[in-house]
């Protein structure tokens, strides 16, 4: 378990941060770390630790899949693109036609989160469609 040693600081940080359902396994030369973080800051912290151990993530020996837990009661999300507008599409996929846009920093309504990657949203103008979930931050 050489990889477990290499990334010990990361798994220790994950344990210390109280990551839920934390699972660490090595398979075919890759270490898989899965779990759920309480918030985005915790997730980002783990990625910083990862970046310190493996600068620029060039080793290809770790898949860090830590998602942020979202309260079922959450109904709104903020658009967290770098600066651009976020496309709202007819269906879940970039091959789907764009039906609207949400501005960077805008808070929109969450309709359905049953798809992990694409959330169904509604803008304040009433446009409804799917947005890439990685560019949305649930508002508590």
């Amino acid at each position, binding site marked *: 378990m050489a990889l477990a040693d290499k990334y010990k600081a990361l798994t220790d940080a994950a344990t210390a941060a109280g990551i839920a*359902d934390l*699972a660490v*396994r090595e*398979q*075919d030369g*890759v270490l*898989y770390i*899965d779990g759920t973080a309480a918030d985005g800051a915790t*997730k980002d912290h783990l*990625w910083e630790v990862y*970046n310190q151990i493996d600068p*620029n*993530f*060039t080793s*290809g*020996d770790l*898949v*860090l*899949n830590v*998602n942020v837990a979202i309260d079922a009661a959450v109904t709104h999300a903020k658009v967290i*693109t*770098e600066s*651009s507008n976020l496309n709202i599409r007819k269906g879940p*996929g*970039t*091959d789907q036609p764009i039906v609207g846009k949400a501005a960077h920093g805008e808070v929109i309504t969450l309709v359905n989160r049953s798809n*992990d*990657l694409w959330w169904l949203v509604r803008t304040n103008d009433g446009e409804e469609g799917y947005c*890439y979930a*990685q560019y949305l931050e649930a508002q508590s």
Partner: protein
Amino acid sequence: MKTTKLLMSMVIATTLFFVGCKPKDAAIQAAIQAKEAAGITVAVTKGEVTLTGEVDDEATKAKAAEIAKAEKGVKSVINNLTVKPTDVPVVIAEDPTLIKNVADATKDFPTVKAEVKDGVVLLTGEIKKASLITLMQHLSALKPKKIDNKLTVK
């Protein structure tokens, strides 16, 4: 005299009563222990059985308690067996799903080229350092087998 005899017999009876429990418990313990799987420890006190140790699954845990309950002279069973935690298997996305999701995830990174083969995501091209962490976070959520990052970081 009569009183002394009576007292004596009472003392003997009481002694027998208390001592009597011990061999009985020991016999029950031995009988159950012989029937239980390895790794299970059986303790018996006044007919009350306590099971401790670690077993592979819930079914084994339940069966161990049944074995103990079925033994003659057992009054109750405290099942303190623990079930070994199983490792969550590594889930790797199928290529068609992964290809579609990688295309979605890399769409906003026009300088990045991504290829998917047998679950491995090969990244070539260039990227800004600030965007790299975002891209890696997006890709890691797609359940790839591996992310082969050959990007030039600007």
